[in-house]
């Protein structure tokens, strides 16, 4: 079996669309709402979550034959918590400003349902390489949605992208105003809903009756 056999490819790419953790499995919604009012924190969050899921998956997958069944959730939590703490410490040392923006949400990666979901559903039953790909895929699937939402929220809410002004001053002179409502968390859930709608109308097999 090659490093990227067909099965592995679907493990890696499935979560990007057909099996997306946010818009199909509806996991990790709370952080998708919380960190998406600006693009930069959304990007850093996406990278952090991807790193944590991928490595937690590998570690749990390596340990999967030794973990006592009765405390497996605790073991998974300890591994996640340790990785999240390391990510948070590294951000504090090398990306201090972004860490300040993300504030509590880095710590809250531990409670991201996608993480526990992947560890429990995939890493406990598969080898390290597949688990790594699965973690990577799910992290990216989560990240893609985060970035799409953050793109629209920052553009419509603040008129900027990554902090740079993109809506020309002339628009404002004509009476255009930034939509403050888009910054509020409820609008993020509307954004998720719109993405789900577009995604399902393009993928008829995901539609439920």
């Amino acid at each position, binding site marked *: 079996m090659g490093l990227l056999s067909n099965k592995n490819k679907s493990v890696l790419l499935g979560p990007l669309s057909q099996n997306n953790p946010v818009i199909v499995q509806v996991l990790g919604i709370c952080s998708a709402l919380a960190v998406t*009012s600006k693009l930069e924190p959304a990007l850093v969050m996406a990278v952090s979550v991807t790193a944590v899921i991928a490595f937690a998956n590998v570690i749990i997958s390596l340990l999967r034959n030794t973990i*006592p069944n009765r405390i497996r959730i605790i073991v998974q939590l300890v591994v996640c918590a*340790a990785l999240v703490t*390391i990510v948070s*410490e*590294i951000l504090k*040392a090398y990306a*201090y400003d972004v860490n300040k*923006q993300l504030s509590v949400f880095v710590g809250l990666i531990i409670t991201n349902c996608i993480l526990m979901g992947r560890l429990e559903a995939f890493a406990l039953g598969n080898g390290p390489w597949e688990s790594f790909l699965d973690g990577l895929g799910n992290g990216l699937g989560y990240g893609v949605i985060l970035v799409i939402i953050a793109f629209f929220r920052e553009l419509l809410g603040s008129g900027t992208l990554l902090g740079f002004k993109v809506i020309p001053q002339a628009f404002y002179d004509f009476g255009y105003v930034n939509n403050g409502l888009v910054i*509020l968390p409820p609008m993020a859930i509307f954004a998720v809903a719109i993405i789900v709608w577009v995604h399902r109308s393009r993928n008829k097999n995901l539609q439920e009756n």
Partner: protein
Amino acid sequence: MNRDGNIYTIVYASVMVILVAFGLAFTSQSLRSYQKKNEDIDKMKQILRSVRVQATAENAETIYKEMINESFLVDENGSKVDGDAFSADVVKSFAKKTFPVFVATVDGQTKYIFCLQGTGLWGPLWGYMSLNDDKNTVFGTDFSHAGETPGLGAEIVQLAFSNQFQDKKLFNESGEFKSIAVVKQGKTAEGQDYVDGISGGTITSQGVNKMIFDSMSGYLKFLTSQKQ
């Protein structure tokens, strides 16, 4: 080996926890010096922002050394006490009734920088306020927060908010301490200077309002003692 046995489970859990503890302690220790440096530089940037200087992480230390020529702690009677103002934890130091003061020279004029600390919606707020040498007129302010809502309360860090404080006065005409109010946009405050709060960030704005009043009250004697 019975993976479901009690002894196996207990030993497994203990070993895992000890290993993780060592791992985390090691990470924390090895990154500590970088983090401390970042925190110090961040604090210098905040102090400099309160005297209208936008420093970057690279030049903050140099500019800070050039501009801030004195720092000391004062007690509630306005007299100087022993201690290092920069390294003092503002919350602890306020609790002990000692208040850090930094003295800066901006374009040949003396500015006094005071520490502010209070609470917002989700957690602590803090900031710095610089006054002209009349110890009444605000020269500049800077606000920070631990976890206010991004896009709402968190907007207090923006210049659009903090610049509003420039040239506002803490004392009224007859020399009474009134502080500076943060009010809802469109509202006014009787008998004192005021600025507009953040729409959608009402509790954070009220937090800033209270923070300025409470923190500057601590400096009251220092502000009034040398004023003729």
